[in-house]
């Protein structure tokens, strides 16, 4: 009897374990198909030989990475020098994305704070309003942005009409236009996590700070910001990462001079000029860079948290 009871008990545990395995299976399958497989494919393609007009030849080659980092002259027979073209594009992507992130933070933080401090039944309304522009396709939004910003566009008309400027500002085809485009594309990704953090914030802490003679600015810097830092961090990542790989805004608003890594990759796969292994290699470099930046900031974050306590 005792043995029977014991085996019964272990059977329940087994069933539970088994059920857990089966229940987790869909998640694993989805992850494998949607995340692991594409990245793995990209990794493999980046080490293959290119076929002209797109496609690959299944032959191992380091040519794609070589092309990305080294310059061997027009005919490939000179001693290798560092190839700056793509590294420059990369570098530009990083700081364009960083500028867009800062811009989003500067606008997104006050917006999120504003929403979080409305009355409880007004907050969902404001969040809803924030998302309305995003019902329109990104391409359409970016094109309209271009129309708004161009030399004869409404923005310049307005500024000239109120007499602020005499001649139109040339915004389109500058880095700033790209930053504006990226900012506009990803602003909600900044607002929503910060909003969630500020909404959870205990405003009695701000009162306590004011009670202890802190100015509004000091309260923001020393009490509110540390408390909502995880939300700010999440927002920055959610804006920075897609900004870095974005190609619509740089293509449409930046012109040929302000090429970003997303456009470079897009070009390798689209149309006839394609070089799939090179595009895959550039993607792998982008992925690695993003991972390094994320790991670095996560470590900084952890360090700051530890130093704080």
């Amino acid at each position, binding site marked *: 009897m005792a043995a029977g009871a014991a085996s019964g008990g272990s059977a329940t545990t087994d069933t539970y374990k088994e059920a857990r395995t089966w229940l987790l299976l869909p998640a694993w399958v989805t992850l494998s198909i949607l995340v692991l497989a594409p990245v793995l494919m990209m990794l493999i393609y980046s080490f293959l030989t290119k076929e002209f007009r797109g496609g690959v030849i299944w032959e191992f080659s380091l040519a794609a990475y070589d092309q990305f980092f080294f310059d061997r002259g027009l005919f490939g027979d000179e001693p290798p020098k560092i190839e700056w073209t793509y590294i420059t594009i990369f570098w530009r992507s990083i700081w364009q994305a960083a500028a867009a992130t800062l811009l989003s933070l500067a606008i997104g933080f006050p917006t999120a704070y504003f929403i979080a401090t409305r009355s409880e039944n007004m907050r969902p309304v404001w969040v809803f309003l924030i998302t309305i522009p995003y019902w329109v396709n990104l391409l359409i939004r970016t094109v309209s942005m271009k129309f708004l910003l161009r030399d004869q566009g409404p923005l310049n008309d307005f500024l000239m009409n109120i007499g602020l400027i005499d001649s139109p500002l040339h915004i389109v085809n500058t880095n700033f236009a790209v930053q504006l485009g990226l900012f506009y594309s990803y602003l909600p990704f900044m607002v929503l996590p910060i909003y969630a953090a500020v909404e959870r914030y*205990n405003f*009695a*802490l701000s*009162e*306590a*700070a*004011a*009670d*202890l*003679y*802190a*100015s509004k600015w*000091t309260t923001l810097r020393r*009490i509110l910001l*540390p*408390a909502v830092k995880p939300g700010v961090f999440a927002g920055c990542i959610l804006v920075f990462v897609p900004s870095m790989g974005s190609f619509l805004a740089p293509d449409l608003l930046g012109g040929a001079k302000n090429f970003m890594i997303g456009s470079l990759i897009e070009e390798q796969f689209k149309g006839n000029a394609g070089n799939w292994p090179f595009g895959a290699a550039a993607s792998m470099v982008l992925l690695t860079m993003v991972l390094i930046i994320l790991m670095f900031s996560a470590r900084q974050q952890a360090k700051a948290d530890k130093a*704080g*306590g």
Partner: protein
Amino acid sequence: MLGEAQLSDKENIAIDVRDAVKRYGDFTALKTISLSIMDNEFFTLLGPSGCGKTTLLRMIAGFEAVTEGAIYLYGDEIENLPPNKRPVNTVFQNYALFPHMTILDNVAFGLEMRGKSKSEARKKSGEMLELVQLSQFSARKPSQLSGGQQQRVALARALAPQPKVLLLDEPLSALDLKLRKAMQLELKHLQRETGITFIFVTHDQEEALTMSDRIAVMSAGELQQLGAPTDIYERPHNMFVADFIGETNLLEVSVDGIDNGRATCHLGGGHELTCNAVDGVGVGSKVHMSIRPERLYMSAEPVETEGLHGRVKDNIFVGTDITTIVHLDEGPDFVVRTSNSDRGNKRIFEPGAEMFVNMELGAARLLVD
């Protein structure tokens, strides 16, 4: 002469609330309150939740604007000063300690904001933590401390910048009974030691009686009675105060006659009582009377002329006392409390026994409404 009086007022009155009104849209949270809180006083705002006591405290701290009237701090109007410019500090209900700072940094925050150097602020904060016996926790985070410890940190943090007035918003409500009792004594002690005016908000009448120099009893946005704990307890002004503070026998009476400052009152069932007359209660008025149960005692024969005859219904043992429920002949029920230490002098009757309920002249109190 007037000038002199004003000067001494300026030094003696810590907080002067003059005809202060607070409205939120249509809702009036405070209806024209005036009160003066003296320098170096332990002053309590007492009332049930929603009576406006916290609103008044927040108006003094600067978190709420005054709709009408004015508040003066040692003679200066403070309405236009934001909270961070008012030399008052608050101990918040849920402490509101800064979670990302150490205990020491929490306490040092106010001092730093007042322009003290970091080292000076830390040194002073260390002393404050010693005062509340938490020195060994100075490097910890608030979340690593118990509720009682957090409470004491909040206290140290609010006292560190040496405010002119310390505001305490139900600071003990989150603590368990034993800790609360200990903290009550500690708070009272701290107030004497620092000489800072304390304004304490609570809904716990026992807490208020224990700690306060004076108590303002509030209800529905109005001041019901202002006085020393003994005043409030022994001489409640109206029904609300008598009922809210302590336990009492509330009886409907009609005033039959007033003579020489004494009022003769009819209890119903033929029982009569004499008590001190009160302003605002005239002959013929039907009002309530409050008699504290511990002011009553029982005897086999009437001791004073107006011993009330009745029968014991039940005796309840409650540790320090015995509570006896008495039914007067054709009259109301009475609760009589006899302290266990008094059992040598005072008699306890078995249920069903006939006896007389007696009291001294001052024990019964007529209430205005």
